């Protein structure tokens, strides 16, 4: 792993950082292939331009048959390819759930460990502004419950590149979720190839009064609120797990041990969210550390509506995070 400090800071977009990770891995290992609907043109942008460098067999357009190409990767990985799939939109996982949850996630386990399945399923995901219910899902809570899938959800361009490298080098099925709204965020990213281990979280902002665990697009929101509260003398630590499976509970518990207060902000529906899982685990393992009841900030339990005021009502806002933090301090 390269040093995190960048000597000459180079700011690029998150989506470009993903692409750099993809490009590096296509260059590193000729068994890496990228497939998906229109990956040659790339609507969202992560694969744009790769076909020119690696050709149409390694960056290959598929028919709109999510179930089949998600499943084909299982057979392909079992015999030597390292497929990387662009699902394009998070909801499209639902089209392919049997192949993802019953096949990709289970074949290694069911076979008693006979086979490794190095596959990455990446997609843009989450609300992006009036994309409506079928293009705004964040499927990570559901997928966390499918044993056998690693789940990555980077929040910065730096993490996006390093975690793409690790996801592709990993010998297991990895779901890589790019929150839509983060694609256009810029940040420092080294030019060279580096990796970030799966299962290692990151403290995005140090603080001493409250731990806010934030996931994906919730991270910049939490940082914004934390900076605002600093003026009032409230010191917020923002912890980004970066991967949800495996989950860095040690880092979260260490932070809670310092602050005694926990808020988890998840860009997903509340019920059985990652926030629910983290709060439950901290309550079990770190009950004595807590000075106040832990709080979850997540979406209302409804599909994401289209009309802007409805969408705003259903999703999380800075003021929700602000209120939850104050609740732990009350």
């Amino acid at each position, binding site marked *: 792993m390269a040093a995190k400090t960048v000597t000459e800071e180079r700011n690029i977009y998150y989506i470009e950082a993903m692409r750099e990770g993809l490009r590096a891995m296509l260059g590193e290992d000729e068994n890496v292939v990228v497939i998906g609907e229109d990956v040659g043109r790339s609507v969202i942008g992560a694969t744009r331009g790769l076909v020119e460098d690696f050709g149409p067999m390694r960056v290959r357009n598929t028919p709109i048959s999510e179930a089949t190409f998600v499943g084909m990767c299982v057979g392909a990985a079992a015999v030597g*390819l390292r497929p990387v799939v662009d699902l394009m939109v998070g909801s499209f996982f639902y089209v392919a759930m049997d192949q993802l949850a019953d096949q990709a996630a289970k074949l290694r386990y069911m076979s008693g460990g006979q086979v490794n399945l190095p596959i990455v399923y990446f997609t843009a995901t989450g609300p992006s502004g009036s994309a409506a219910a079928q293009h705004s899902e964040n499927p990570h809570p559901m997928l966390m419950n499918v044993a056998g899938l690693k789940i990555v959800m980077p929040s910065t361009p730096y993490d996006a590149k390093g975690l793409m490298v690790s996801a592709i080098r990993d010998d297991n099925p990895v779901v890589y979720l790019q929150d839509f709204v983060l694609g256009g965020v810029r940040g420092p990213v080294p030019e060279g190839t580096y990796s970030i281990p*799966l299962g290692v979280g990151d403290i995005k902002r140090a603080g001493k009064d409250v731990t806010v665990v934030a996931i994906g697009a919730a991270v910049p929101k939490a940082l914004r609120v934390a900076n605002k509260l600093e003026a009032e003398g409230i010191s917020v630590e923002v912890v980004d797990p970066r991967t949800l499976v495996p989950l860095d509970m040690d880092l979260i518990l260490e932070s809670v041990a310092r602050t005694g207060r926990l808020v988890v902000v998840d860009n997903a529906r509340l019920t059985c969210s990652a926030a629910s899982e983290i709060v439950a685990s901290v309550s079990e393992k770190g009950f004595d550390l807590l000075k106040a009841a832990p709080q979850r900030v997540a979406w209302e339990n409804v599909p994401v509506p289209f009309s802007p005021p409805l969408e705003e009502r259903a999703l999380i806002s800075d003021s929700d995070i602000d209120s939850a933090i104050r609740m732990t301090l009350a």
Partner: protein
Amino acid sequence: MTKTSAFDHLSQDDAIGMLRNMIRIRRFEEKLTVLFKRGKLPGFVHLYTGEEAIAVGACSALRTDDRITSTHRGHGHLIAKGARVDRMMAELFGRVDGYCRGKGGSMHIVSFDLSIIGTNGIVGGGIPIGTGSAWADRHLGRDNVTIVFFGDGASNQGVFFESMNIASVWGLPVIFVCENNGYTEWTPTSELTAGNIVDRAAPMGIPGESVDGNDVVAMRFAVERAVERARKGEGPTLIEAKSYRWNGHNEGEEAFAGAYRPEAEQAEWRERDPIVAFGERLVESEWLTREEWAAIDSDEQAQVDAAVEFAENSPFPDAEEALDHLFAPSKESA
């Protein structure tokens, strides 16, 4: 006399090997019926009895490194692809010497060493997987082919159409072998399935061939033709093998299924026993004596009996193994 005339280029050794494999499947599954009734098998089993010619004919056209994916009714495919009955039996008993160390059971026995890259409890679930191994082999410049076995029921799953489509446009070396045994679980397939399954190849622009699934030689030759096309890069083939499931959808179904198959229909198909039919042809061709045939049978029966003993003597896995094998150790993880 030209003993090979009836069997074209099939050698005597090949033919007798095929008969032996069919008998092995039959005796193995007959034993499962008994074991199931005695409550010796955890879970449930779906038997292949009556359809042995399909698996044996098809797999006899493959090289060892050619691949198959199989179904919930997969014992025949596994044996035909070279799986050992003792390790299969141990898996069915949930023991540590089973192919999957007891983690898979009847519907999930796989052996990647034998290029059996998936069996499946989900109807149609293996179709994309086998299409994917064919894609990888073609992409990597190998000449392996993959047979995807599936049933008439699976022919109504979306992934079947999707996989034929992508296999056709990508020219993949995959052979879709549909085993039409007449029943989709407990309902006649004719009530649930439009047209002929084999005709579904035509709109995809791939060859389709209908084969008597009770004729092991016909299966062998049909699959050989498909394998030849696939190895030459000429793409996929759909083969519909028509046969009949002697047993129920699963053992023990009499508890709820009722009499959903006419007695006369069952009797008619039992008359067309693929093993008897092939054995008789071999005897008529003077490739096999009845004594040799009986010796093969008793040898296979003994192997199956020994397999039960092997399974019973194999220990259960340590309970902590329930937590193993989920993820491959990672080079990158901390």
